């Protein structure tokens, strides 16, 4: 039963990532694209967690954690750049 559920979840997340990609490509504004990238990061974390369950391995946890941190820092850095024209003042 669990493998079927994982397959369903992976399909759902792939659709979600495609929708994010659509928003990333279409825009129309810069904040829309930042938001799409941020959502892609979060969906990727979910996908990695699923991969971890699929392979019964705890090793994926660390990459999920790293992506969570990098995603947040990236989003803040780009937004900050828009706001101030500079990242580190």
């Amino acid at each position, binding site marked *: *039963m*669990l493998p079927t*559920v*994982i397959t*369903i*979840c992976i399909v*759902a*997340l792939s*659709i*979600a*990532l495609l*929708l*994010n990609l*659509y*928003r990333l490509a279409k825009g129309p*504004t*810069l*904040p*829309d694209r*930042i*938001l*799409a990238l*941020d*959502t892609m990061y*979060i*969906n990727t*974390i*979910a996908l990695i*967690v*699923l991969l*971890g*369950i699929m392979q*019964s391995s*705890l090793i994926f*946890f660390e990459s*999920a*954690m790293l992506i*969570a*941190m990098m995603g*947040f820092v990236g*989003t*803040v850095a780009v*937004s*900050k750049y*828009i*706001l101030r024209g500079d990242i580190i003042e």
Partner: protein
Amino acid sequence: MPLWVEVTVSVFLLFGAFFALVGSIGLAKLPDFFRRLHGPTKATTLGVGGMILGSMLYFTQMEHQFQFQELLITLFLFITAPASAHIVAKAALHLKVQHKAKHTEQQPEEEQDKEADS
């Protein structure tokens, strides 16, 4: 693995996948930027939270030892999601992104200009 664990893990995973998908549908479907902001900040964050709970339960069962490292990711996401939503919204106000929402009291854009000038 006992059946009830499998069922609970499955419920958590499906719950998480559903909300992650709803958040992304909101991002793709809603008409203007500030409405799109609502999907990813709430639904997607909860979606990942649900998935991680399922994963925690699964590994606790597999390793016969309580695993709560993954809770750190959930905690981290729940702290950072509002912060990143806030700063993206601030950037959008700064760029004067078009929106259909009606304003009450003050106009946020004017304040933003004052702040940017100072």
